[in-house]
């Protein structure tokens, strides 16, 4: 079951914003202060470029999945090593999201929340979505995306007038090195295009519109920049103490004298986006397991993912220490390697391997055209009468 190009763009958008609105702004501030806004911009632009590279490769790989594609370019051993590294990357990303989500839920919504009450329904939901496949995750993402977007804009816009632009000045007072250090140290929170590697052969490019991808990437970048601008502008030097960007913006902004009740419910919507993101990374995790161990069915890898999500809840102490793990140089090296080096190696190897091959025919048959628009298997051909309408419309300059 394939997802269409628009759904892919939405997943990229959700992935781009997934980890950015919890602890990351305050963590970035400790290293690069209000210039952190540029760190986020820099890394998100890189992620955007990688999204283009990976999608280009996926489009030219035809029906091959990532395992088949890498195997044909790099051989079995390197492929398996890369897949293991990707597995680690997705495991870390899931841990990061799960940890952030749990802290957010426990600290903001409950006085006391049992780990089991938190993790059991979440693991069941993730397991269900993964089992149902990428099309299911993409469709849910398609629905929730706009609610989340409106919610975030609503919360941030309310505090916008309290943000002081002068607090960002002077720019780069310590030079650019803190920015690069910060980018290296917090790279685990970025790399939001890597998941696309696991979607090789699962995206229908028949209705590809490059402009659509650009729009979604820009939307994600502008949204993150807007939230960070308001966050740093409002909290300034106290930013490192505000570990929940969105909820703290609504709760502790100087503009608000009391708890902004409505905002809490809007913030709660964030949970939905995190759950979808967790399912997406869980799906990539599941696919990596399938490729590494050459498993055909979905049941066993799905159970492994659910157990992994569940295990995260059992090792509560480790979870608290996870933040330190994410900040360790070793993890930064691994994440940079999986996020930026592996996709680049695959891209170069793919280009070398297939440079003499004819590009894949983009005018695929009609079955492919429909892909996920209604359902993959349904044939939908444009009939003569419709082309006639298009001709008529064309004459009037409507098309």
């Amino acid at each position, binding site marked *: 079951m394939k997802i269409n190009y628009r759904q892919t763009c939405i997943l990229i958008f959700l992935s781009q914003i997934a980890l950015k609105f919890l602890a990351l702004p305050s963590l970035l501030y400790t290293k690069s202060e209000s210039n952190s806004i540029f760190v986020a911009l820099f890394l998100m632009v890189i992620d955007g470029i990688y999204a283009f590279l990976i999608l280009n490769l996926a489009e030219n790989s035809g029906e091959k999945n990532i395992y088949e594609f890498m195997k044909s370019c790099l051989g079995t051993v390197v492929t398996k090593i890369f897949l293991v590294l990707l597995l680690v990357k997705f495991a870390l990303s899931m841990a990061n999201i799960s940890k952030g989500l749990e802290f957010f839920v426990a600290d903001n919504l409950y006085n006391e929340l049992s780990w089991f*009450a938190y993790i059991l329904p979440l693991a069941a939901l993730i397991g*269900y979505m993964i089992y149902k496949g990428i099309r299911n995750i993409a469709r849910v993402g398609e*629905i*929730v995306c706009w609610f989340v977007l409106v919610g975030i804009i609503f919360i941030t816009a309310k505090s916008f007038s309290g943000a002081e632009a002068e607090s960002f000045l002077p720019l780069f007072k310590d030079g650019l090195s803190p920015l690069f250090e910060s980018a290296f140290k917090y790279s685990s929170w970025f790399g939001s295009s890597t998941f696309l590697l696991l979607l090789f052969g699962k995206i229908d490019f028949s209705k590809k519109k490059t402009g659509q991808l650009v729009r979604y990437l820009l939307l994600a970048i502008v949204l993150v920049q807007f939230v960070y601008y308001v966050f740093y502008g409002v909290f300034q030097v106290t930013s490192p103490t505000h570990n929940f960007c969105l909820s703290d913006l609504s709760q502790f902004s100087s503009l608000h004298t009391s708890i902004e009740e409505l905002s809490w419910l809007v913030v709660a919507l964030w949970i939905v986006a995190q*759950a979808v993101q967790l399912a997406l990374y869980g799906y990539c995790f599941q696919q990596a397991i399938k490729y590494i161990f050459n498993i055909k069915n979905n049941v066993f890898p799905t159970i492994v993912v659910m157990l992994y999500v569940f295990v995260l809840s059992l090792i509560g102490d480790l979870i608290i220490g996870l933040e330190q793990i994410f900040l360790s140089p070793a993890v930064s090296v691994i994440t940079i390697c999986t996020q930026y080096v592996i996709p680049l190696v695959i891209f170069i190897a793919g280009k070398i391997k297939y440079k003499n091959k004819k590009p894949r025919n983009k005018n695929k048959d009609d079955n492919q055209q429909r892909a996920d628009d209604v359902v993959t298997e*349904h044939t939908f051909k444009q009939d003569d009468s419709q082309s006639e309408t298009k001709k008529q419309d064309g004459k009037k300059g409507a098309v």
Partner: protein
Amino acid sequence: MKIDAQKVEERIKERLHFSSDIKSRAVKFFNCNVIIMYIAEITDNKLLNDTVIYPITSYSKTITGDKYAALRDKVLSSIELNELDVDEATDKLLHAHTLVLMDGAPKILTADMEKITVRAIAEPPNNLVIKGPREGFNESLKYNLALIRRRVKTDDLVVQNLELGKLTKTQISVLYFSSVADKKIVSEIVDKLKKIDIDGVVDSHYLISYLQKNPHSLFKQIGDTEKPDILLGKMLEGRVGILVDGTPIALTLPFIIIEDLQNSDDYYGQPIHVTLVRILRLVGVVIAVLLPGIYIALEIYHYKIIPLSFLVTIMNTTQGIPFSPFVEVIFVILLFEILYEANLRMPQYLGIATSIVGALILGETAVNAGLVSPPTVMIVALSGITFYIIPSQAGQFSVLRAVACLVGACLGIYGILLFCVYVLAYLSSFDSYNSAYLAPTAPYIASDQKDFMMRATINEMKNRPRSIANNRNNLRRRGK
């Protein structure tokens, strides 16, 4: 082989276990025995007399040659006749045909004499409209087909008849536009219908579990309507309609979830108003399903996010209530459901009294007795009323509301949000006859947004919805 009328009559009666309603009348036709057989209760006696009995008994012209041919071609020439063997004729007798058995004839003559006794065509109680046609289907398949045929005067409309039920032999008609409906879907539906092995089909709902792909799912997967204009509108979008004799409810396939957010008078009203009404319906669905659950979650876990003045009001009214918010809400829901069920089945004059007793006295007394708080009554009542914004989904909303209450009581807002994602994920995963259940939202189909939450004018809807799998013929109209 020549017929012996007496023996054939005996054989038919024997096959029908000498049922008392099988009538036969012997007459003479030029010294030849003729037996007329019919089922009195379903036969139009006047028609029988005027077109069969009287012409036979009063025929006075001279006949030379074959008497059977004369009976068939001259005496009974005013009616449409079939020439059948004994078994086929017996089946026809059960379908309100009259049999004419003649000594020495090679076949039995049969003619349709059905006495149609049906309810008048009226506005269906479940599909009331402010604007638009008020005709509704009744229990006669013939009448229902006529209501459709009257509106369609092209050769594009296909009516495919089937007979289902070993004991009832119920007539089923599958309707579709040959140039619009997807042939694969039509044949899939017809195949499924043909494979149904059941003793009887009493209502169209008997077919639902055979036609839906997830029979155990809570969610509705097949559309239904009692109005010919709605059925026709859906068929024009590429759907297939199924009419069953004996029921006014027509089924439509494929079904997508937004169909129930739309109403037939949406298409006869102002687009802006219709858009607002549709948004209202969607908000109504959210209130109906989630409001009691959210209320429970807020009271148990998240009272700190309730605005202070509102919290004080709630605290004042809930003081002294012996039950937890969950039990309180469930108690009121149960009360509401019991009253609803009682009202539905009681005689009308009692129903009004029960409503007053239920709503005013029971509710008021329960609040005064300190068993439930006023906010709980208000929230459950609001949720209960909003159910009927989309009455055809009331059953499943009721179940979802109960689950939302349970989840809200156990896990709070976090649980309710996960529950919403679970429902979305579940609904995203199934398709109804090649049509995505959540289309045109997921997958997003831009062209179909003209008739989703927002409704464009009819002339702006140039193409058929792509959410419904149809047969290539996507164009509804040409020109500006």
